[in-house]
């Protein structure tokens, strides 16, 4: 039961962690950019360096897909050994392989998404 719970948390992190990080990155980048532009236009600027803030925010959030990708890679590495065993180990190995492959893919794509958000204001920052 305890092992199942630990595995559930690991797989949830691998499948949902990068996705959550990207969503937070998008929401926060949007909120910072939109709010600072709106406030600046109405003369209520908050003196925030928007490109640097967004870059820092996304750099921190990029850690999540990197970590999830590493965990997924480890899951994938461990799974072939289990496949040779029978019984419940086979189901566990199948699941680890499935989560590993899916997790690596999700980590790569969402990391790319976070990087795109981070570099965007460096080339495209204005409120007009």
């Amino acid at each position: 039961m305890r092992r199942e719970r630990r595995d559930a948390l690991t797989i949830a992190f691998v499948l949902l962690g990068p996705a959550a990080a990207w969503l937070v990155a998008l929401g926060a980048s949007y909120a910072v950019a939109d709010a600072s532009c709106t406030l600046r236009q109405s003369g209520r600027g908050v003196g925030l360096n928007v490109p640097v803030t967004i870059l820092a925010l996304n750099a921190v959030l990029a850690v999540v897909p990197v970590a999830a990708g590493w965990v997924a890679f480890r899951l994938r590495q461990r799974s072939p050994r289990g496949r040779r065993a029978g019984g419940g180990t086979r189901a566990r190995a199948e699941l680890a392989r499935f989560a590993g492959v899916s997790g690596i893919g999700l980590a790569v794509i969402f990391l790319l998404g976070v990087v795109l958000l981070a570099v965007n204001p460096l080339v495209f920052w204005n409120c007009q």
Partner: protein
Amino acid sequence: MSLTQGVPDTAAGQPDFDGVWRNPRGIWRSLSVVSHKPVGSRFMITAGLFFLVGGIEALLMRVQLARPENRFLDAQTYNDLFTMHGTTMMFLFVVPFIEGLATYLLPVQLGARDQPFPRFNAFNYWCYLFGGVLLYSSFAAAAVPDAGWFAYVPLSSNPYSPGPGMDFWLWGLALVELSGIGAAVEILVLTLRMRAPGMSLARMPVFAWAMLTASGLIVLAFTPLLVATSMLEFDRLLGATFFVAEHGGSPLLWQHLFWIFGHPEVYIMFLPAAGIVSQVVQVHARQRLIGYPFVVLAFVLTAVISLGLWVHHMFTTGLPPLTMSFFTAASMTIAIASGIQVLAWVATIWLGRPRFTVAMMFVVGFIVTFVAGGITGVMVASVPFDQQVHDTFFVVAHFHYVLIGGVVFPLFAALYHWLPKMIGRRLHQRPGVVVFALVFVGFHLTFFPMHLAGMWGMVRRVYTYDPDLGIGGLNLVATVGAFLLAAGVLVFVIDLVVAWRRGAPAGRDPWAGDGLEWGVPSPPPSENFSRIPVVGSRYPLWQPERDRPDRDERARGFDRAPADFRASPTTSILLAEPEAAVHLPTPTFWPLVPALGLAGTAAALIAQAYPVAVAGLVVVAVGVVGWLRRNEAERWPERSGVRVGGLPLDVHGTRAIGWWGAMATIAVLATAGGTILASYHFLQVNATVWPPAPAQRPAAALPAGLLAALVLAAAGALWLGTRAQIRRRTALAVLAVLAAAGLAAGALTVGTYAAAPPAPSRHAYDSMVLLVLVFQAALVIVALVATGLAFLRAAAGGPPGRLRLLVQVAAGYWALTAAWWALASGSLYVVLVG
């Protein structure tokens, strides 16, 4: 003989497995049916009827547009029709049909005997039906909604839509949304907790993965729309100013909230369609789906990215370029997910031995059309291009390519694939080919010319056009195509009726299929499986492997058992290890009562008959109490300590499906609360003055007291819920303290209102304060009801697991209420931007 022990026999004498699962017959008594197959069928049939009505509305519009300056319809009727057509297809057809299909099919695919909460399932259907009927009763009241399916403000606000038309739209939709969210909760709990033993996540049918991701999206996307429609009704009914710019509100807030729902809505429809195609293609290509993990990855990717695309519907609203660039990037990224899926389907056909059945034809038609619609989607994700074609027929063509090509074609494939299982008879091949030809050719004739018409200047939502535009010929072709498409649908309906009555028997497995559904008779019996299947591979009928003999032992305990009540096993999330048995409820009329009450309340509010609305709320309360009483009265197997197949019935915490249902409800409420707070901050940033002077905030003592009462209630419930052993008297005393803390919280909510009553028509800040307090009061009421139920359970005695579960659920609601109020008071009482 009953395999359960210590259980009294049924009133009739001997326990009877078939009798327990038998559904009532006859028109009146069948209204009490709650089993997933009849309820799923009702969803599909009702949605199918709405599809026909929406199609007729489309044909009328096409006749009007067949030539320039036509006078077949006047402008007002055209406005009515495009509003009702869009609303019908988006809210009353596609999503309910898909949820109906999943309601019918998923338990059979997953090896369960029913949905986790069958009575709630029936309630969802009644809400959907009454919502649709309420919306269409606007025709009888000569007050048809006419502000478009998106209901942009200020067009949908009182000054520009003064009659009750938009109220019909808002209340009808509220009921339908409630139903959609409820059905999604059912599917989430079913796919996570009620799969057959051995069906690990890695072995789950791909359609189940699609429905799991789509259901998560429904919870996250439908809820903001429910909040938005409530806010618009506040504006219309109470004179609130959420969307009134002169009073600190913002019309853009509506667009944000609507599209936060509206864009994921496209994928809520597309993901199940992709799941259907993945299932159909592997059976009809006689080849396992190539790249199963990558297709699942693509589902997760699609679901998540779709939540971050809404702004691309707002590229012409004057947003800063940086903001738009974020969403352009996200919009183009989703093409990666679609590309992965298309590659997987093409590879599966390529490597398989495809049979060109009608279902397969629709799959191939889908791939071609969806790719075309996807390409125009990437085009409109680009800001400069979108700004040129926004509100033209190019966009109409694009989204019909995605929605008909990407969703309706797969639904036809699903019907040709699974109808033999549902009705026990096969549809005919030749008429099927005719249906495909008419639908495919008719569709492309209708919608391809719209790309050109849009590029050449034909705008949307205008009832006629100038002959000098030179688009009369294109429109005539589109109208001819629409009638061909309609003829295809007509031939399908006729073939369906004929096959239902006189079709050749389908047999158990007409396609040599891969999944559990093909291992049961057609149509499946009421209990689906008299013996619970045990799964050892991703394709149980193609690779009937066994990897754990002990699972077979557990499942054997369910062989035609229990014979005294309905039950099915629950399994763990990852590996589907049997964990407990769930007691499933029997038919009852109770779910119909609150749905009727809600519909009556909505109708009375539209008619401004407020006493009747109050009576409607009383009916809701009576219905809920009756329903809960019936549920608790039927818990005798739990009280008797019965085990089925060695698995306990009386469980709590994460082993109980009730816990998962409550957590899903908490997720819905948290999403609603988050939407309200995000709206508050959006208005705060955009308003020139916030809050208006003088600030209408009550003294800090009331909110602080409220928070203290809520934290006390949450902590007490959490403490009680974690106690393994507790005396009945202690439980009653703690629950009484909890109820008192909750009542104090309710009183303080009212006190916060009374200390400085907000005037919603004065400023959007006041409107937000009112909304926050109303939502807070609703949370307190829900938590109090949960606490009251636990108190009654403790007072009546009974299964200890059930009592702990009820206390845990109450603890969850109190914790949510406390957390939300902490965040809300942080927003209301801490001024972030002066």
